[in-house]
Each structure stands twice: as structure tokens, then as C-alpha cells.
């Protein structure tokens, strides 16, 4: 019989990506040293993040134009292509010691996707995975993106779900190098959503899927 895993939840609010990454790094060290698993919740001001091998052609508007509008572009020490964060998008960074669950990256990503699917179900939205792709879709439109890193079997980075995000921002890039349309909870239900409500529901869904206390 499995036992519940102790987890602390930290809402770090609206925070710069780099500042949040420092908190992630700090938390990874703590969890490696035995501190309890930690779920970080936040939103970022508009920022485009690029993986190491990101293709410039995935910017549909010249990067200089984006920066001249006051939006940041950051090169990040991770794989993958370009993606974008902004206010109205809930970003979750589960800093979990996978030894508490299963040393299985695919399984972990699958469970994260399930958290998103279950959260969307709470809003009466039917979401799905697409075979061969990471992420969560409603029909043909993408609503949640994932990307994780692992160090000593402790996870970092995580999952972003569009809640009230300004979807026009995505017209500036090919998210994750894909020709994909993005959607959001508020677009699908036709009204703005209270982030506090989303945060409560997402924590509940993490607890349920990962058997957290």
C-alpha cells in the first residue's frame, strides 16, 4: 500500500522568469538534501524562452521587434524550442524527488498531463493527449505545455496552462517549433477565470494524482 508523500506548496506570485529559476535551483538543492517535495506556483510577465538549439525561424516576428515592445527573450539552459509565458498563464514547477514516486520520466510527464486534464475537467472542458506529442490539447488546440529537467532524480521546470493568457502573443512564435494554435480556459468557457480558483484546483489535482499530503 503506498503512503502519501509530504509536499509543500509555495505560491511565488507574479515573478520574473529568472528570479523564479533561482528559486527553482535553490529548491532543487533543498529537495536533494532531503527537504520535502515542493510545488511552486506562479505567473510570469511576458517572456519568450529559448532552448539551446532553438531555431530562430520559430520567431514569426523578428526578435528585435519583440524586444522593442518591452518583452523579454531569454536563452535558457534547457533543450527544446521557443515557448512563451505571460500573465494569465498558470505556471507550475513541481520540484519532486522522483524516488518518492517512480524513476520513470515518461510516467512523470504522463501524470503531469493528467493533472492538467483533470483541472480542465473541473471547468467542464474535455482535454486530451495527442499520441507522440507532449502537452494537453482541446480538440486540435493546445492548452498546456510541459518541459522538465531532472537532476539527481529531482524534477524542475514543469507545466504551464493557459487560463486567461493573451493568446495573440502566441502569434509571434511557432510554440515548441510546431504549427499549433493555442487556446485557454477563458477562451473556451467564454469568460475570465479567477486565478485563485485555478490555483486551488490545480493543487488539489496535483495532490490527487501524486498522492500528496
Amino acid at each position, binding site marked *: 500500500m503506498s503512503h502519501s508523500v509530504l509536499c509543500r506548496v509555495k505560491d511565488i506570485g507574479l515573478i520574473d522568469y529568472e528570479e523564479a529559476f533561482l528559486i527553482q535551483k535553490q529548491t532543487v538543492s533543498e529537495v536533494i538534501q532531503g527537504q520535502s517535495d515542493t510545488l511552486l506556483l506562479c505567473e510570469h510577465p511576458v517572456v519568450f524562452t529559448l532552448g*539551446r538549439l532553438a531555431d530562430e525561424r520559430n520567431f514569426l516576428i523578428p526578435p528585435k521587434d519583440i524586444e522593442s515592445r518591452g518583452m523579454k527573450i531569454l536563452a535558457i*539552459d*534547457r*533543450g*527544446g524550442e521557443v515557448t512563451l509565458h505571460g500573465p494569465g498563464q498558470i505556471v507550475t514547477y513541481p520540484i519532486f524527488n522522483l524516488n518518492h514516486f*517512480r*524513476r*520513470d*520520466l*515518461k*510516467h*512523470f*510527464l504522463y501524470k503531469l498531463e493528467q493533472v492538467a486534464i483533470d483541472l480542465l475537467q473541473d471547468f467542464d472542458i474535455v482535454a486530451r493527449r495527442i499520441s507522440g506529442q*507532449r502537452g494537453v490539447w482541446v480538440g486540435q488546440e493546445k492548452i498546456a505545455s*510541459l*518541459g*522538465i*529537467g*531532472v*537532476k*539527481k532524480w529531482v524534477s524542475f521546470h514543469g507545466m504551464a496552462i493557459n487560463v486567461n493568457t493573451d493568446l495573440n502573443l502566441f502569434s509571434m512564435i511557432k510554440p515548441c517549433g510546431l504549427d499549433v494554435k493555442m487556446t485557454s480556459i477563458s477562451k473556451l468557457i467564454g469568460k475570465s477565470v479567477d486565478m485563485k480558483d485555478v490555483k486551488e484546483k490545480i493543487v488539489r489535482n496535483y495532490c490527487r494524482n501524486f498522492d500528496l499530503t
Partner: protein
Amino acid sequence: MSNIILPELGEGITKATVAFWHSKLGDHIQEGDDVVELETDKATFNVPAPASGVIKKILFKEGQEVRIGEALAVVEPQ
């Protein structure tokens, strides 16, 4: 000599791609240091050094695919 092996990453994962070498040939590393980062399926995974020592051999280049259980590099413990 100590091999740095790509460990089991989960059911159904048979290989990963070398994304980034944190260390290079001749580097002195501590046990537990991240030596190389690999990518699979949107997850990047850091492989640590099993022992402190000097990197004597690097067996795969960035961009190359490695099978689970294969040696990525060789460390001479010191």
C-alpha cells in the same frame, strides 16, 4: 576506471540524446557533479559522476543517441 552509464529512465525509454556536456576531456570532477545532460521526450536528464576523478574518455558527442545502459564517459578515480 569508472564508467558513467546512462541509467534506466523509465518504462519504454530505450535511448536518449546527448544534449550538453557539462564537463570535457581532462576535467577534474567531484562525485555527484553533473557531467552530461541528455534529452528524451521533453525531459532533460542530468547524469552525475559516480566517483571523483579525471574524465579520461568521452564516448558520445552532443546530438548523438545513446542506449540505456551504455557508457557515456570513463572516469579515472582520484
